[in-house]
């Protein structure tokens, strides 16, 4: 990710900054980063686990599951670079490993591993005094009675989570001991289907009621430069936790937002992160009569899926340009203080398992005033799975309007005009 300062890498002539971009095969983000690099005039070297070698520019084959070997290959073949950037989650550890070998400033591998494991997050945050739900970690080899004990220790309702999955996959609410045990069994099946380690523990944590939000920021100099705060006004109470509606800027009171940003910054530092994009998810727990931001999860990356399309930055920049600029140690333009025009995104969840046959009503949905885009992300004919088994969304609806409430209304109206056919 980062090579602070403006000097070039050793052995390089003064020219366009050279960036190693690690692109996983299954990402929404490749086009955004390539366009950002082109707009910034960067010299790009790409490493990927899916790209075909066509003899154009260097595309280095890598395997994110084998970061040591891939890092050695990259160092041998890429030539000097000024920064290493992971385009999406599967490349985060490899990017850190490569940067360490090249001597480039970057998040340490250990910090990235901390951010990629929900049980490590909870332990680090507990040690640092970061506000979060009460939790218990149940080893994979523990008898089912341990799940029951853990759930009773944190209290009901509770949430049972896989520690290595994302996008709300492998997360279930449980309202009693039997439901907690059933949830754990189900999540083990999800982990098996996702080919995760059989030694992976499960997380059992307190269910926090209250508004949910996400904070996206760039971490630099120990502080967070916030790029967006999304309210999530329709986050369900369970048993699954589909992220559907995201609206920015947040309509939460300024003091609550400021406290949430402080908590997210504290959480990032507690994991050992030092730079780059941060995506934090929090709930505002107001059971004690005063709003208390509590950390749910944090990832060392930008907001997922196509959600960044809902964001607006000065001069027409896209989020990926800010990430690349930050990685190169270039100043990132201030995002505020004037509020951005309200915008939002609705992520279409998979309603039931089956084969996607059609998404009807798209023209009607796109015609709703305020709607600025509608993308169906899964091709017709593909098998789809709802949460907690699946990790994909059918598509994304985007809106802009004069107020956050109008954005929300436009997105929901557009959603209501769509008919998803799954057989």
């Amino acid at each position, binding site marked *: 990710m980062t090579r602070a300062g403006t000097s070039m890498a050793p052995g390089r002539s003064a020219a366009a900054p050279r960036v190693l971009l690690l692109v996983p095969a299954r990402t*929404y983000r490749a086009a955004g980063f390539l366009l950002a690099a*082109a707009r910034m005039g960067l010299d790009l070297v790409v490493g990927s686990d899916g790209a075909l070698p*066509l003899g*154009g520019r260097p595309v280095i084959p890598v395997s994110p599951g084998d970061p040591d070997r891939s890092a050695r290959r990259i160092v041998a073949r890429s030539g000097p670079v000024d920064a290493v950037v992971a385009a*999406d989650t599967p490349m985060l550890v490899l990017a850190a490993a490569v940067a360490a070998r090249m001597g480039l400033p970057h998040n340490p591998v250990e910090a990235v591993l901390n951010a990629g494991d929900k049980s490590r997050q909870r332990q680090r945050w507990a040690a640092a005094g970061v506000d979060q739900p009460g939790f218990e970690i149940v080893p994979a080899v523990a008898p089912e009675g341990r799940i029951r004990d853990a759930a009773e220790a944190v209290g009901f309702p509770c949430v049972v989570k896989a520690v290595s999955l994302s996008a709300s996959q492998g997360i279930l609410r449980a309202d009693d001991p039997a439901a907690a045990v059933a949830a754990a069994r189900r999540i083990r099946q999800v982990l098996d289907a996702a080919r995760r380690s059989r030694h992976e523990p499960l997380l059992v944590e307190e269910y926090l009621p209250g508004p949910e939000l996400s904070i996206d920021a760039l971490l630099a100099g120990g502080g967070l430069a916030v790029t967006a705060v999304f309210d999530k006004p329709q986050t369900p109470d369970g048993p699954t936790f589909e992220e559907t509606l995201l609206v920015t800027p947040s309509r939460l009171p300024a003091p609550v937002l400021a406290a949430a940003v402080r908590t997210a910054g504290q959480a990032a530092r507690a994991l050992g992160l030092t730079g780059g994009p941060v995506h934090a998810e929090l709930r505002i727990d107001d059971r004690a009569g005063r709003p208390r931001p509590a950390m749910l999860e944090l990832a060392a990356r930008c907001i*997922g*899926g196509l959600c960044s399309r809902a964001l607006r930055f000065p001069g027409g920049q*896209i989020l990926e340009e800010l990430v690349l600029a930050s990685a190169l140690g270039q100043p990132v333009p201030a995002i505020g203080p004037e509020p951005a025009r309200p915008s939002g995104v609705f992520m279409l969840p998979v309603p039931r398992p089956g084969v996607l046959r059609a998404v009807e009503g798209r023209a009607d949905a796109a015609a709703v005033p305020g709607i600025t885009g509608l993308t169906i992300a899964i*091709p017709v004919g593909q098998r789809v799975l709802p949460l907690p088994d699946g990790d994909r969304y059918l598509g994304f609806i985007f809106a802009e309007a004069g107020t956050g409430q109008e954005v929300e209304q436009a997105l929901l109206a557009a959603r209501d005009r769509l008919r998803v056919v799954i057989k």
Partner: protein
Amino acid sequence: MTDLTAEVTAALARSVVPSVIARGAAVRVADLRDGIVTLEVTGSPGAVFPLASRIEALIRAAVPGITAVRLVTPGAGPAGSPPEAGGDLAEAARRVLDTEVNPAVAAHRGHVTVAGAADGWIRIRLEGGCQGCSLAEVTIRQGIEPLLRARLPAMAGLIDVTDHETGTDPFFSPEKR
């Protein structure tokens, strides 16, 4: 810049440009006369053309003096116009694609065709496993474009006119993270 052009530019910046950029393309006002605005789309406009009617509706709603919106690519006619037949550049590009690119992308069930060429700009369309693939842009910008530039010095630029959203068999599909 006329007032009307400024209004259209502002409407573009507010409601269109961000999502166009995020789809791997860029857009600007190329011409405005008699209420008809011509927008030039560069980069990978294939991802943008399916939005043409929506973009027109947005601009017409924001700027009442506009009666129609046309999308064009550099050196080409309006979006959706028939591909130009023949042409030395198109034929030369076709040869390079067929000998040096298509044998490789066939490994991913893909195929790349030339949709047209004019004024140095080559328009390509990705098919099969390449249409809608999450790595299509990497294949184009890191592989096909520099290869064509090296082989065809007369090439001014490469435009992907594929409607990726309608791809039914992409080799790699993106995952939400």
